[in-house]
């Protein structure tokens, strides 16, 4: 009995973390090419609203996902246009879009709040789902979860094991060198900003059509910012980023369990956990004290510890690139 409960909790952590993983992978592709898309919070709200409404009207969830991807791509395209073509601050444009997406989703979705809609089908993978313990945790889920799992692997492989991935990293690390090698840096940045944005849109849809079904004002407000923090915590790596998303999911699940166990402790304490965690994880990977802590450790431990605790952003992140 105890075991069955534990398995259910672990499975729910994976489900809860899946949309975050999708958004994190999308933003990693964007940032590794050298562009910061700060609009995630507004993009995901707009995408979640659009996916829900389109799904409801057409009775087809896939059209909902497609519409959400288009919305995400449009928001990202504005960021790319502003920073690459018009030379404006990526942070400013992204931030305004984050606020605008929030207001737009509230206005456009006002007649669709608190309605029953369509949702993603459940699909247990045959044979695999029957493996004891591992099966129900990993392989008895909705398709969104499998998509997220596949995306982690594909993103990692694309970044680290393919020629286009090398060019992508080149434009984020040393755009001048990449350009000298014949890489069209700005074209790649457009491409990966828009692709990353589309994935962020799909992540928004994954919320409103699967993990947190439905639409209401400010439905998943704050999630986009958490995804951005996870990208940093994850050191711009899809595998570490996925781990970060799971950590957030696990903390939330733990909070729910604890809340049931200690109802007298205020709900406030549990609501504040993700935000305190956000500050703590960023402190852990950034602060000088972490470096001092690592240096105080025995020599043999320093390298592995540094690999786990420190991260470094793509060197040209957020800076414009001018040819010639």
């Amino acid at each position: 009995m105890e075991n069955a409960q534990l398995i259910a909790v672990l499975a729910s952590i994976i489900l809860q973390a899946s949309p975050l993983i999708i958004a994190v992978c999308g933003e990693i592709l964007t940032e590794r090419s050298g562009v910061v898309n700060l609009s995630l919070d507004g993009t995901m709200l707009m995408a979640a609203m659009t996916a829900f409404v389109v799904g409801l009207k057409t009775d087809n969830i896939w059209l909902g996902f497609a519409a959400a991807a288009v919305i995400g791509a449009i928001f990202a395209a504005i960021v790319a246009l502003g920073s690459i073509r018009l030379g404006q601050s990526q942070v400013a444009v992204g931030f305004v879009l984050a606020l605008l997406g929030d207001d737009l989703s509230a206005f456009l979705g006002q007649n669709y709040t608190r309605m029953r809609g369509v949702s993603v089908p459940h699909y247990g993978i045959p044979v695999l789902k029957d493996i004891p313990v591992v099966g129900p945790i990993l392989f008895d889920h909705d398709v969104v979860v499998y998509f997220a799992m596949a995306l982690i692997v594909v993103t990692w492989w694309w970044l680290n094991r393919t020629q286009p991935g090398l060019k992508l990293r080149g434009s984020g690390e040393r755009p001048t060198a990449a350009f000298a090698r014949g890489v069209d840096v700005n074209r790649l940045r457009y491409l990966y900003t828009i692709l990353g944005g589309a994935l962020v849109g799909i992540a928004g849809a994954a919320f409103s059509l699967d993990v947190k079904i439905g639409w209401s004002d400010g439905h998943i407000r704050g999630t986009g910012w958490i995804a951005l923090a996870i990208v940093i915590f994850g050191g711009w790596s899809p595998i570490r980023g996925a781990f970060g998303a799971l950590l957030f999911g696990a903390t939330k699940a733990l909070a729910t369990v604890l809340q049931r166990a200690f109802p007298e402790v205020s709900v406030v304490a549990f609501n504040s956990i993700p935000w305190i965690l956000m500050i703590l994880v960023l402190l852990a990977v950034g602060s000088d004290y972490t470096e001092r802590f690592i240096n105080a450790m025995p020599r043999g431990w320093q390298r592995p510890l540094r690999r786990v605790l420190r991260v470094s952003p793509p060197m040209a992140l957020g800076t414009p690139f001018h040819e010639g």
Partner: protein
Amino acid sequence: MIQAPTGDRSRLWKLWPLVPISAALIFTSALLLLFDASPAEAYRAMWDGSFGGQDKILSVLAFWVPLLLASAGLVITFTAGLWNIGVEGQIILGAICASWVALNVNAPSGVLIPLEIVAAMVGGALWGGLSAVLKTRGKVNEIFSGLALNNLAIILTNYLISGPWQPPEGGSFRGTTPFQDAALWPRLLDSRFSPLSLLLAVAALVAVYFVLRGTTWGLKLKALGKNPYSAYLLGVSSERETILAMMFCGALAGLGGAVRVLSWFDSLRQSISGGIGFLALLIVMLAGYRILWVPLIAFFFSVVLNGSITLQLKTQLHSALGGILTGVMVLFVLLFGSARQLGLGGTQASAGGAPGTDLPDVTPADAITTDIPGGD
């Protein structure tokens, strides 16, 4: 490609502010048509909501004051190249600290009101300072610490009004009981507008103007914002100035929070700021990070936001329309503001808050690249 302004072009420049306004109006009109609402009627309802009567005008003024205070503070942080997204939380902390004084101190107005002002400024400054220390010591980008601290401030408010500061009659989750009369600021004609608060806001604007124009500190902030590395070489302590700038902004934002609880409302409410800090960020961006444009743009925002509340009451359309109108305007100016890049403009300073030639509109982008944790 800086070109000398020709006569034609400078005349065209004078019309530039109309472009983002029209773009925003066209966009919102399209949205209204999508909902089968008449744009003309909607804008009329918004206009009536802001200017249709003495009480409406006073309400616009009352909403204007906290926007002014927070924006004045943000001009300082933007000048130093900081993205103080945490301004919303600094407003809330100011409101909480002012409420604490109003609830716990028994004194005549003459003592109580100055105490509330000090408490609010200290509260906001500490919340801002926390963000700054997390940045300088912990290498946590101020955007993320600010967002987290905003949400923690909202959670703290909810805790206070549903817990220790709960009204004696019990569990309403909406706010505390109204404060004692002596704690509330004198308001004009039974409205929400307190002349004292406007006086404080004007003082803040003047102070920021002179800090940036004529003081060494202002010069240091500009140096830090434009080029942190050369500022460092010139002996400007980025840690000290970052903390001071954030605390300065936090103090003014906190004062704005006090205005919210003691003049706009009469108690601490659930959404005490309700996005005023985010509006102030947009105002300062639209103003091209210059203090002189802040009052006018903040007034426009107050008109639109007050109007959209009336719009929702009259037509049931979501009041987010006001936010969309202002948001589209800012986005438009951000994207096409420096029309130089499109080959349109001259060197003349533009009127509508389009970033000019020597403004720190590039620094925030620099800031995020230099400050993302682990940049080693």
